[in-house]
């Protein structure tokens, strides 16, 4: 399965993806749960694990007329960041290109992974981001860690994970079977 098929399937299985960060983080977990699209090459980034390949593929899909991007402005939020959300859905051409792929096992796996993420509490992009950061650190360390150890490791990436949100992240990861609990 190539990255374009992965991105198109991810958006299709989600119906519509509300937010670029949500797409990035959901892509991270779906890739993890399915073992597909390992070439996305997620790396540490200031918004948590980020794949330039996914971002590039998304732009390519927009260019080819397979994905539509909508924008919603939310004004300035606390911290001074101006919020604008980018929503993604498949165009008619995108649906047509994906059509033969909908019957494959890979698509079924992606749809199942999207469902599992929703069933595990359907976290918003912030929560997914923290869970992704936590998982990223755990995977790098390849061992169980206490909250304090994890927060210390997060500092190395310049990530300031709020301690109270670690519990929800741990529960999310555990429900998905990505940690031992």
């Amino acid at each position, binding site marked *: 399965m190539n*990255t374009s098929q992965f991105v198109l399937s991810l958006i299709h299985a989600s119906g519509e993806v509300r937010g670029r960060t949500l797409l990035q983080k959901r892509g991270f977990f779906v890739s993890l749960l399915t073992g597909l699209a*390992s070439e996305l*090459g997620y790396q540490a980034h200031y918004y948590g694990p980020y794949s330039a390949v996914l*971002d590039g593929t998304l*732009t*390519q899909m927009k260019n080819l007329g397979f994905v539509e991007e909508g924008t919603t402005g939310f004004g300035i939020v606390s911290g001074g960041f101006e919020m604008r959300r980018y929503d993604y859905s498949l165009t008619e051409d995108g649906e047509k*290109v994906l059509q033969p792929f909908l019957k494959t096992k890979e698509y079924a796996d992606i749809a199942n992974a999207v469902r599992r993420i929703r069933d595990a509490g359907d976290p918003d992009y912030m929560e997914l981001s923290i869970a992704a950061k936590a998982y990223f650190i755990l995977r790098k360390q390849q061992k169980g860690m206490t909250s304090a150890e994890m927060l210390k490791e997060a500092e190395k990436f310049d*990530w300031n994970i709020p301690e109270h949100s670690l519990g929800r992240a741990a529960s999310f990861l555990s429900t998905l079977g990505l940690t031992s609990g």
Partner: protein
Amino acid sequence: MRQRLEVRDPIHGFVYREPEERDVMDTCIFQRLRRLRQLALASLVYPGATHSRFEHSVGAFHLAGKIANALDVDTSETRLLKLAALLHDVGHGPFSHVAEPILKRHSDKTKLGDQVSESKVHELISWQIISTDKELARLISDKHREQIVGLLKGSWGHSYLQEIVSGPVDADKQDYLLRDSLFSGVKYGVYDQERLSNTLVIHDDNDDKFLAISIDGMHALEQFVLAKYYMTTQVYRHKIRLITDQMIERGIALGIEEDKVEWLKALYSFDGSPEYVAHYMEWSDDRLINEILGNATKDGYAKKFFKRLYNRQLFKCIFDVDQNDFPDPTVRNFVFGDSKDFYKPLEKAVADILKLDSNEVIAYTIKFDSATRTESEIPVIHRMKTTLFHDESTLFKSVDQKIREQRFHIYAPVSFQDDKDKKKRLREYKNGILELIGKMADPQTRLALEGSLPG
């Protein structure tokens, strides 16, 4: 009085060096960069573009220091940043980026594991050289060399430090746009470098610390984005330059796979061993051309392709289309999707029509490296708020979209009698090849094709 050792650079004027930095520049691994051209054989299009990776690396070193000073980065981190920028290209081999796909294909995946899919091979070689070169080890401590590699890899140091050496507006790009522009004799890569580096800021939003730009530098950043766009369309993706690059790549690939030239195979089979790196370091652009053209290499494809390059007898572009040439989304996706499985059968079919050897027909998609981080997510700092560059800039989106547009080309060794003949035949080729692609994209034909392809 502190000793100041300067080098005069055509872009930046005097570049000042500390004694340690001068000594690093004097190492064999760094001096070798004088023998690697920055833009491979772009001089066949722009005769002045013969500058080397040596002067570019000195320029990147200078700019890394300049950016670090503007950001008030402390002295010890600035030293590491400058050294990282200086050494970032030491792993390049003959013809630099052009040969990267060959390195990727022939590297020993069993020994190197996931590294090959996660990073570019020349970067892996750079990191290994910095970590193990004995001459360098005498000048820079183990710990500091490890940190320099970490900065380049993105595994050590704050985000904003890593972004100075490897990020959307890093010292590398800031230098090569200006330098490639000057030596190519164009003005497309010019932007306000002074303003750009002086308006970069470290943004701390309580969660992260990263490189951002003050609103005052918005237009300098837009100018930089435009410079990159113009250089891409006018120089890096110049039609003839693309042909020379593809001829180099195909010539080397056929030399290894068809002519079975053992030394060529050994040169591109990176396995992470010190012996490989020692051997690799002995090669340069000119040596590769001379060895291929020399008597010690048997006649074959490599010699044929490099003889053509040597005498500037280049292939011609016989098919040039973009996505708009394919209204049917299935065919559009077939051509511009990720799979290249149809290249070989298409090259064969085109070669049959033109009565050529199919190895001498080259199908190629011009696309933006999707793994490249663009300026899109750079935070723009206003007095009361922070936005992202892609939201703030009126021109970024259209330029970014344009730069990512793909084209599909076919190159072949044909010649035309005159302009009239050229127009007529190119039209015929286009119609014939579009028909071939339409047939290949048909699901039934694809099944048959897949069945006939080996393994």
